[in-house]
């Protein structure tokens, strides 16, 4: 991939689906998957999904469809913040810092319920595994397999940061070819050289290198109540501290020329996109420069990364499972032949879900599903 996965994988898929007439509804947060009650089922009828309850976080002006992508040098990209100018009350969201992706920010503009037959025929449940306990209480209460799945199939938070440097890798002291490296120091034991993105980004002065770092982020011991709305921010600050400490103390092992002395990263190597070239006097040449870069703590339940721990494969459920005859599931947490957390598994799983509700594609045609 010559650019980020969001831009090269998800954006084209989104555009292709739109062309085919798929209707997307952004800013709707699924709160509950409701099953039909046992006494509502006819003789011999299978259990089924009766309703889907959503919080409507925001509404789009003039009843239009939300346009999520921005154009960066001809490439459709996902921006890091939603475009509030398209939303009714948009300026209020900005002022009050609504975090639409946070599990702990429950603010909304309304609710909506979709009912079977009236509003939908089939449901493909593609949310991340971490969110299942929060929205699928009916399934978990009534179905032992769903209980087993959420109990045994583990997920983990992750943290990541990306920096843009004015020097290239050679100058930083890395003389080998560009690579992705792992099993280094924790946190951020994985480093991926992203310099190939330089050509895709729009800079007046091109960076010499781009580097991406990531690793798991330990859960905190106490459970986070919904009222703890600051939780994501706190963890984000924690990731910032981790990143700064790492650049000061650890990166020297890989990039010998990136530190002045041990414990002191050359902060002026970082490129601040907001800085004017002329304003050298105002430059921050200390740790505060880190704030111009990008980092995140992936702590939302849907963002948690799915693990394939030993002995847990048997708790996964297949998209082909027909226990609820208007529901299928899709994601790298299902059993799909490649039971690992990756986009490939998500794609195979999605195709299995497509087969579940439409018998197409043929199972034999799903690459990598059948194999010795």
């Amino acid at each position, binding site marked *: 991939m010559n650019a980020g996965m969001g831009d090269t994988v998800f954006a084209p898929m989104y555009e292709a689906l739109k062309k085919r007439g798929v209707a997307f509804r952004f800013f709707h947060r699924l709160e509950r998957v409701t099953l039909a009650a046992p006494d509502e089922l006819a003789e011999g009828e299978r259990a089924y999904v009766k309703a889907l309850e959503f919080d409507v976080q925001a509404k789009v002006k003039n009843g239009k469809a939300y346009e999520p992508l921005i154009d960066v040098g001809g490439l459709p990209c996902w921006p890091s913040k939603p475009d509030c100018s398209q939303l009714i009350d948009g300026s209020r969201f900005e002022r009050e810092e609504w975090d639409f992706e946070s599990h702990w920010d429950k603010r909304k503009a309304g609710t909506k319920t979709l009912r079977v037959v009236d509003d939908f025929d089939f449901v493909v449940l593609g949310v991340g595994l971490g969110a299942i306990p929060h929205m699928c209480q009916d399934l978990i209460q009534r179905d032992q397999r769903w209980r087993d799945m959420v109990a045994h199939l583990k997920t983990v938070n992750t943290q990541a940061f990306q920096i843009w440097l004015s020097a290239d890798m050679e100058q930083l002291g890395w003389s080998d070819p560009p690579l992705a490296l792992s099993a280094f120091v924790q946190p951020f034991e994985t480093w991926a050289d992203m310099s190939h993105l330089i050509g895709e980004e729009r800079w007046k002065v091109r960076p010499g290198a781009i580097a991406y770092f990531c690793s798991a982020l330990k859960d905190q011991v106490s459970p986070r109540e919904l009222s703890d709305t600051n939780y994501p921010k706190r963890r984000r600050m924690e990731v910032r501290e981790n990143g700064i400490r790492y650049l000061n103390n650890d990166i020297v092992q890989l990039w010998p020329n990136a530190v002045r002395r041990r414990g002191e990263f050359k902060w002026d190597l970082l490129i601040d996109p907001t800085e004017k070239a002329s304003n050298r006097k105002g430059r921050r040449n200390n740790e505060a420069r880190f704030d111009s870069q990008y980092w995140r703590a992936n702590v939302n339940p849907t963002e948690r990364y799915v693990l394939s721990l030993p002995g847990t494969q048997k708790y996964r459920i297949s998209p082909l499972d027909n226990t609820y005859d208007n529901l299928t599931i899709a994601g790298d947490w299902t059993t799909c032949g490649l039971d690992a957390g990756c986009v490939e598994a998500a794609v195979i799983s999605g195709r299995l879900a497509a087969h579940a509700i439409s018998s197409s594609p*043929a199972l*034999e*045609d799903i*690459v990598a599903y059948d194999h010795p």
Partner: protein
Amino acid sequence: MSGTTSTLVPSMLREYGDVTRAALTKYLPSREPRRYLYDLLSDYPQRGGKMMRPSMCIAAARLYGASLEDAMHTAVAIELLHNALLIHDDIEDASEKRRGLPTLHVLHGVPLALNAGDTLTLMSLRPLIDNRSRIGERLTLRIIEETERMARECAEGQAMELGWRRYNATDIGDADYLEMVLKKTCWLATIYPVRVGALIGSRDSVNLDPFVRYGFFLGAAFQIQDDLLNLVGDDGYGKEINGDLWEGKRTLMLIHAIRESTTEERRRLSRLLSRPREARTLVQVTWMRKLMDKYGCTEYARKIAHGLAGAALHEYSLLSAGLPDSRDKSFLEQMVTWVIERN
């Protein structure tokens, strides 16, 4: 069956033929050596032709809901293979004309023409491999399997026919003839195109045996009609009249003549057929022709051809029973009358 001339068949042959021809040129490179190879490869395809085989493939695919593009690569491969076999056939039959012009080996000599024929055969692989991106690995492999089967049947049928001539076989019955036609002609001309077409369209979910029956009856009727035209065709016919007689080709008519003739006549016939083509004289060929007329061989063959056409229509009605009406469905049905009535 009705005698109404169909306009659907010629117009669909033209439509599917044009598309196939355009796609086919992409697979014929125009690079060196031109004079020795690549110009030869594109000669026969450029001479036109009915494009019956690729059209039937496309129609069968669309019968089951595939798009024209889904069947295009395979249609191109079929046409390339067909032209390759034409080159070889013309050499083996020592024919002098093809579609009104000199045959390839007459123009360039047997060695270069033979090499060109071999090359065209091999080049038909490329579009079959290109199927992968369009219809997926599994169907691509299935089509290659079907192609291998068809090529084998073709070779066996051709061997039978050539062997009969070489070794002067005279005790051949109608059943032998039908089996030879089944292998040599029907597989490439009518069975394989609709089989792989249906395979593509239905994603290999329907039983393909009914297509063997339909294709066989249709192809046999087609071949017998071809042989009849060789005897009674008019100026529009692109090959030489009585050419089959000159070659001693075992047509249904000749077999019937051998069977019906007196002992004396059979002996003379056998002697004539044992001679090589170059040694045959116009007097001898004219005598053979008169013998056929004496025993009503052309009438006999024509009746059989009509019977086979009827059987083809019957088989088609069985296999198409559950399919919705469409131009393609009518086209494949009307092909049957078209092969009988064409001249």
